[in-house]
């Protein structure tokens, strides 16, 4: 067991959960889109994956993580990130559309 690996792995897991908390706080502040929560969920799953890694590093017999399990977690994380960011992108596209429409309509409004 490499103590440095365990410390870094544990800190990475903690920071991942802190990131999930901040992600949720961002959602609570602006409530832009519920799908943003997919990104928060991705951070949580990522945190769980990091905990499994730490267990592996300390050689715990409790977690016998298989390659397929790990790849499944990786797949879920990537999928959730894509969904969350896609939904946010739609929101930002909408902001762009509204800004453009206002500029165009104000020009007509002035005439």
């Amino acid at each position: 067991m490499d103590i440095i690996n365990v410390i870094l792995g544990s800190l990475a897991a903690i920071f991942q959960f802190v990131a999930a908390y901040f992600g949720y706080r961002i959602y609570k502040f602006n409530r832009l889109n519920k799908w943003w929560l997919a990104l928060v969920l991705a951070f949580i799953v990522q945190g769980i994956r990091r905990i499994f890694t730490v267990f592996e590093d300390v050689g715990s017999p409790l977690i016998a993580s298989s390659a397929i399990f790990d790849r499944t977690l990786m797949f879920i994380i990537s999928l959730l990130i894509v969904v969350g960011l896609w939904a946010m992108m739609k929101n930002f596209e909408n902001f762009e559309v509204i800004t453009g429409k206002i500029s165009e309509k104000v020009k007509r409004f002035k005439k």
Partner: protein
Amino acid sequence: MSKIILNVIKPEKYFEEVSKIIKKQSSKNIIYITTNKPYSFIVNSFKKNKINTDKIFFIDCISKQIKEKTNDEGNCVFIQSPQDLTTISIAANEAIKKISGNKILFLDSLSVLLVYNDSNTIGKFSNFLLNKMRASDVDTIMLALESDADKNIIKQIESFSDEVKGG
């Protein structure tokens, strides 16, 4: 210096009061955020009351929500829903920036926003919007129903306002 006015009005006199306020402000460009009635209804009612709508720029937050047909109307932009507060803020800011001359922001109404959003969110939204309007030196008139006047959030918004009428 800009002024922020909260009008607390009786539900039965709602549209009558709206018409009065708009008539009184008719010399200015009005940015009218409607969460209460669709653009088409308001324009038709104003026309019946002989109110000129040429100087009113509408931000309609309700037509799409109630699936009313929205054409590319001249003086109006349509927002997806009254819950979409970020887009409403962006639209209001853009309109304020782009429309020159003497102008006023008219928000109709806080009571409807409270139906679609929780009060904490409306508190933050109102505080943000009102401070933006103050910074841009734009007068703002907001409406709320008398029945909501006792709600904590309306009391909080009263504290952001310079004047509270009615109620």
